[in-house]
């Protein structure tokens, strides 16, 4: 039997509420988002760039009135930037100021490893918050393998161990979304702790809805033609296939240039908005027989 969840009450509920904030999720995405909330498990979202992986986390935060805590991963990210750090400068000041007084060293020592001198970074912040929180760990494949080890404790038990303070457990489990472009295979251990969702380019109908919801000024007829062209471009095996973000950009460009008819000339003129590689553009012109 479906259990009550503080995030979404059913897959349909997830779909409708996400749609309210402009995120049009397909049934699989809605189901998986609901499951992530219901099972209180982290959600790993993989897929090509620009299909709305990060947007999903943002949309969940928006509909559930939760705060979004974001950890942007990059090469060289370490514990100090991801979890917590001691505020050395403040600690040094504290030690210096206690030198004149009669205070024992042991008392000072206890003093400087307290909450006051702790700088919390995204992971710890998310765990300590008592209000609903969406924790977004963005582009997790960009980190070094060691950081994954750090994530394991957080993702499985929602707790962090700080040697000087002890273990901090989550008062309220955050809704965790990890995103990845799959440039690196994540470790089995991380994957085992997560639910998995592969987001791909949407079908034509959904993409048209997304484009028209983002750019309401676009005429319906042009939108249909635009989506059709985009899906034809994606079939061409380009270096960088156009993403949803690029379809929306294109729609905005067409509105800005007041192009009412997306004919071959218009496509050829504005192709730079969609394709960012010279070889891709040459290929598109050749395959779609633009300027022929």
């Amino acid at each position, binding site marked *: *039997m*479906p*259990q009550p*969840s503080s995030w979404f009450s*059913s*897959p349909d509920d997830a779909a409708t509420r996400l749609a309210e904030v402009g995120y049009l999720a397909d*049934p*699989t995405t809605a*189901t*998986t988002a*609901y*499951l992530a909330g*219901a*099972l209180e*498990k982290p959600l*790993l979202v*993989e897929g090509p760039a620009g299909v709305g992986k990060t947007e999903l986390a943002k949309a969940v935060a928006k509909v559930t009135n939760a705060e979004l805590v974001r950890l942007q991963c990059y*090469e*060289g990210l370490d514990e100090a930037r991801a979890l917590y750090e001691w505020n*050395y*400068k403040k600690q*040094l000041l504290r030690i210096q100021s206690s030198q004149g007084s009669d205070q024992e060293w042991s008392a000072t020592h206890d003093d400087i490893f307290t909450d006051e001198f702790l700088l919390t970074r995204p992971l710890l912040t998310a765990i300590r918050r008592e209000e609903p929180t969406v924790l977004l760990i963005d582009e997790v494949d960009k980190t*070094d393998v060691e950081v994954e080890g750090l994530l394991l404790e957080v993702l499985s038990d929602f707790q962090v161990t700080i040697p000087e303070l002890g273990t901090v457990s989550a008062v309220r489990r955050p809704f965790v979304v990890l995103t990845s472009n*799959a*440039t*690196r*295979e994540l470790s*089995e251990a991380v*994957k*085992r*702790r*997560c*639910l*998995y*969702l*592969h987001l791909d380019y949407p079908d034509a109908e959904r993409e048209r809805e997304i484009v028209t919801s983002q750019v309401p000024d676009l005429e319906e007829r042009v939108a249909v033609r635009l989506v059709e062209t985009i899906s*034809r471009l994606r*079939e061409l*095996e380009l*270096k960088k296939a156009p993403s949803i973000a690029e379809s929306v950009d294109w729609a905005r460009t067409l509105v800005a240039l007041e192009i009412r008819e997306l004919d071959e000339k218009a496509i050829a003129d504005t192709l730079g908005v969609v394709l960012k*590689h*010279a*070889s891709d553009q040459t*290929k598109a012109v050749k*395959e*779609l*027989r633009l300027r022929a």
Partner: protein
Amino acid sequence: MTSGLVERHISFLEALRAAGLSVSLAEDLDAVAALQALPWDDRSVVRAGYAATLVKKQTQRPTFDALFDVYFPRMVGDGVAGGRDDDAADSGVRDNAEALAAFRDELADALADGDQQVMLELAAEMIARFGAMPGRGPGLSSWSAYTAMQRVAPSELVDRIVQALMGEGRLDDEARREAGRRMGGFTAMVEADARRRIAEEKGPEHVANVAIKPSIDRLDFTAARRSDLEQMRREIYPLARRLATRLTQEHHAKRRGPLDFRRTVRASMSTGGVPLTTHHKPKRPHRTELVVLCDVSGSVANFAQFTLLLVYALRDQFEKVRAFTFIDHVHEVTEHFVPGADPADVLTDLAASTAHAALWGRTNYGRALVKFEENHADALGPKSSLLILGDARSNYSDLHLDVLKRLAGQARHAWWLNPEHRRHWDTGDSAATRYGEVVPMVECRNLTQLQEFVHDIL
């Protein structure tokens, strides 16, 4: 969960494991929890729940889907008889020339429309009417997608579909591609329906054991079908990009040169002169030249193409790449590796130029090595690595091991990739071990092994 469902759930998991997915106990429990949290009235929701908890890699998804269809079939038997089935029943005859012609018309229309639901229904109907292999007593009939495809021959409909698509204003090439894709999709549906029916009679385990193909990155190069090759080719560029990104990351991680004293002291200012973090000078990267010697004879052509394409895509990782193809004569193909060119074009060019690699038409490693030493010995030097691709099957000709020894001696490193399974080495005319004693030989049968190898040597 009732006991029957638990059984089915467990045997489904067993089948997934047998097909190469690593499904742990933790994931098993997650799947059960997910099923408890989900409504069961929609099959796609159940599928989504299973997929979210069990599949952690997109390349495994087709295998998962095939097995899911077998263990949790879309319908039982002919399903709830729809309108079209009644029509067929009314006419009395379900399988004759007239029925066949009528069915093909219907199929052509459906394919031209591209309506997935209608195509699904037609696939089921096609197996029921034209794919049955009765005659072994009640309850023992079997179903064959192959027979059904032979009889209906949907590939002959392609022209009609292309015409219909061009009528909608599509261009010729594009219509042809689209028609091909729909045909492929329909074929997959027919095969899936045959599996479903067989599973119904013989039990899902039987089908899972015999009819599920390995996922694309574990499929042998030599066993790949046309459609698989197409898919593999699409896979190779992202693969190269993943590899390149990972290599750059790993090089960066290792790139910790000598201590940068000035930066370390400056950074220690904020911590009262205590150098808490040390800074290092970056190390200079070093890159090698790569020389690829590639057997392009029929038996290993697929493998050669993929490896060359991967080498092409990884061009940036090497200072210089030179590629040669051979059958019994060596031909340089480096000029086809134009930076920024489209991989598909490169592959076509390479295929076209393989003709120059053969003078007599029979693979002869010995002669190819001699020719290489005569004409292109300058390619190898102390900075270069030699990579040989081939199955070491030389039609019992002179192997010229001494030449290979000299070539390997000139290069900094040398490797040999063999697309055959290790158990086939040294059978027939294979000289795998004898060549392998000179140049270390590695088995490389699928994309996964290829990826591992490239990662190890760089």
